[in-house]
């Protein structure tokens, strides 16, 4: 067997078997009981050469429509954003992408420092004191936040707004079942969390309250009002945020959030059919020793030189085992690096400017659709998404859009039955005026 990834020659093999003191490689597998020993080869597709595999994979990829060759108005948690070209150049440096978790700090200062910078940038955007080095994604980050609140308050009920991403709510419920925590949904009203319903449900039994800002419908939740209600009962205030939006919005940390979690996908991370993205997790100082996952801290070496290490590891599974704050081990380090590079490239002015472009273009789109006679529901302060009632069935409309090179927005009816044939339209900075006008034209009354 000759293969470009396998350097062992026949001669190497013979010398090594001799040194081990066995005649054949099979002798090394004699400890596998005969009855379970697998003989022969797997019944899987045969190996392909590099060039023919590339050809096959190119064909397979071409069976998918992609958001780069269409005008995409699809968001609902995953967005088509400007990714500075430099991002891919940095994360393609194999010193980063072929490294393991930086457990040996002397030869991992690059990764450790990059993560320390990531933590700092997430703190800056969210207005929180401490951020970890990443979670799998926004949904599981939020579920971990819910579990943290239950552990910290020793209460067993979580309130989640129905205007939180439906898939995040599903993940929260799955995690909650594991730890015998009850999840109660607070309905939405006019596109935001129903404040009266929240007031009725809050009690000293509630561990945490989860809202999304901007919420699943794109609306800006009134965090100030919600915070007061949550904290009257000493529940924890957990906010799920699109970190790009925080370039222009008042950060949850300034509005009393105890935990801010979400997904950094808008910062330089491709949609990739839903993953890998990059969860982030930020807390107040009070909760620093309860944070799940890895934390990088600054320290000094024997010569007093600044350096970085994984720290407060007593929280983690490899030290605490069954008493750990979470079972998370692998995180999303490389995507955290991508997000760091994107946040660095955008910088202080760019992140705000990009967020504002989203607000402005979505605002323009809303007006353009209304001008065509379409009904924008839940209309109010929003970031880069809004809800439009379609003039015909979603499938009909979406098929027509696709024929015009447009990937339409998300069908809310799939998760909110009462919103059948309502489209969640996402307008990022990448959508041009022409593309927005074309969407309005296609959706507009001209086609009724």
């Amino acid at each position, binding site marked *: 067997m000759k293969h470009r990834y*396998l350097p062992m020659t026949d001669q190497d093999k013979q*010398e090594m078997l001799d040194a*081990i003191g066995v005649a054949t490689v099979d002798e090394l597998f004699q400890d596998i*009981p005969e*009855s*379970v020993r697998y003989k022969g*080869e*797997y019944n899987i597709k045969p*190996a392909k050469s590099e060039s023919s*595999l590339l050809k*096959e994979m190119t064909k*397979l*990829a*071409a*069976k998918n429509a992609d958001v780069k060759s269409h005008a995409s108005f699809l968001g609902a948690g*995953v967005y088509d954003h400007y990714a500075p070209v430099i991002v891919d150049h940095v994360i393609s440096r*194999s010193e980063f992408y*072929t490294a393991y978790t930086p457990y040996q700090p002397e*030869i991992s200062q*690059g990764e450790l420092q990059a993560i*320390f*910078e990531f933590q*700092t*940038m997430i*703190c800056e*955007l969210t207005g929180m004191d401490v951020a970890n080095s990443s979670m799998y994604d926004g*949904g*599981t980050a939020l579920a971990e936040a819910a579990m943290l609140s239950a552990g910290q308050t020793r209460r067993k009920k979580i309130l989640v707004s129905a205007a939180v991403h439906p898939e*995040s709510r599903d993940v929260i419920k*799955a995690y909650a079942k*594991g730890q015998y925590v009850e999840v109660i949904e607070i309905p939405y009203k006019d596109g935001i969390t129903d404040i009266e319903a929240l007031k009725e449900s809050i009690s000293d039994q509630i561990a945490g309250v989860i809202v999304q800002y901007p919420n699943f419908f794109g609306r800006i939740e009134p965090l100030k009002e919600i915070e007061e209600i949550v904290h009257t009962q000493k529940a924890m205030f957990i906010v799920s945020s699109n970190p790009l939006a925080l370039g*222009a*919005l008042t*950060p949850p940390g300034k509005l009393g959030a105890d935990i801010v979690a979400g997904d950094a996908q808008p910062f330089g991370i*491709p949609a*990739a*059919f*839903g*993953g890998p993205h990059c969860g982030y997790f930020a807390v107040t100082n009070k909760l620093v020793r309860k944070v799940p996952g890895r934390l990088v*801290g600054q*320290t000094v070496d024997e010569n007093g030189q*600044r350096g970085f290490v994984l720290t407060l590891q007593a929280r983690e599974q490899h030290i*605490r*085992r069954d008493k750990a704050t979470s*079972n998370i*081990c*692998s995180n999303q*380090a490389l995507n955290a690096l991508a997000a760091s*590079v994107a946040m*660095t490239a955008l*910088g202080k002015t760019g992140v*705000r400017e990009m967020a504002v*472009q989203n*607000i*402005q273009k979505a605002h323009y789109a809303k007006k353009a659709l209304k001008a065509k006679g379409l009904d924008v529901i839940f209309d109010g302060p929003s970031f880069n998404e809004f809800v439009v009632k379609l003039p015909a069935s979603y499938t009909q409309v979406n098929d027509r859009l*696709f024929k015009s090179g447009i990937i339409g927005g*998300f069908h809310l009816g799939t998760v909110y039955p009462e919103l059948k044939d309502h489209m969640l339209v996402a307008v990022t*900075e990448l959508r041009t*005026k022409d593309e*927005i006008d074309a969407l309005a034209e296609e959706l507009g009354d001209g086609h009724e």
Partner: protein
Amino acid sequence: MNKQDQPLIFEISTPGRIGFSLPEMDVEAVAMEDILPSEYIREEAAALPEVSELDIMRHYTALSHRNHGVDSGFYPLGSCTMKYNPKINENVARMNGFAHVHPYQDERTVQGALELMYDLQEHLIEITGMDQVTLQPAAGAHGEWTGLMMIRAYHEANSDTDRTKVIVPDSAHGTNPASATVAGFETVTVKSDENGLVDLEDLKRVVGDDTAALMLTNPNTLGLFEENILEMAEIVHNAGGKLYYDGANLNAVLSKARPGDMGFDVVHLNLHKTFTGPHGGGGPGSGPVGVKSDLIPFLPKPLVTEKDGHYFLDYDRPQSIGRVKPYYGNFGINVRAYTYIRSMGPDGLKAVTENAVINANYMMRRLAPYFDLPYDRHCKHEFVLSGRRQKKLGVRTLDIAKRLLDFGYHPPTIYFPLNVEECMMIEPTETESKETLDAFVDAMIQIAKETEETPEVVQEAPHTTVIKRLDETLAARKPVLRYQA
């Protein structure tokens, strides 16, 4: 390597510089106050860096020089399978039709993505000997938790609700007991015997009516195959429990033994280990879970399914444990793993394991005269040494690890598993050449000699890295977790 302190990106920031090029603003701007209530308009800008594009590239290039990856040099980190990460994987994962596909696109427009996922599931079913596979879990630990939640749902569906305990060996990865806890179970530890294998008598003692599952890595974390696996399966199954396979060490048994044939009911795989998704400095990974038929109803939803050549997402799974992750898993890593499997084929995967096992045994034999070998038998893809002989001379395993840095190597996993004193766990993988293994062994022998002759050289190591040993106590006592101007 550059020995000077590398400034933080914030420290080279200069007001007025930019590193971005945003799209043209081609719509008429409205005053922000007309769109948002003033209390929700951010007053103070987030203090992100202000740097040029070249500043950014130099900064991260400098950081990359201060980082060791598989492409930099040998990385025999036990249990982590630090094999070569093929470059074709990176190219394929970046194709527009894979990288830039939205999870909510119409199914008809993502047939290629679904086909790839389906075919990967089929390949993993054959490789593991299980009946069905989900690609949803994001990483190994996430897969463990998913598998345990399914086992819990299975017992609950049988009204067998007193099964509150999960048994793990004392040599298990830390994620096993942690995952058991977050899945709502209590952990019970089963001891290893003098051969480094699960003690069958102790297993019989701890197993019972309250056993939900036994979690096992095979070969175990000592690199030894649990040769009593069938007896163990029988003990656990007779008690009504399920057998869980931690696939962290699958690289040792490709084409040699399948978890499904060994009696395992649930398996998770680490596609970022055995199947070359790069480790990425700690992630992202991918942790698919395979199950036997009686657990299929409990798989997370949706599941990729095929009918008449059309691929679709099946949400109609009433007994499912639900959703463990938004969307459909770490697709980008799954694309890489699929590309790898298709690059290797059945004969290639068989050679992977054979070469990985030869490499490990060869190194073990060469090192055995110089270090204590706690379990003197053929290992699988990795082996453990004990540094207790060196410890008596005042040199600890930590010192040996640090000294290896001076030779340009990433050290082995140290102080794990917990049941071996001054443990060093070495996993060479199949992608390393004999010359590399020999050079590493020579370095280890030199360190063993230094330990006897000039121990201070080892005790004070590393000598050549950009930074010396760091004060970890200070880091934990007075945590500085972010930059502050």
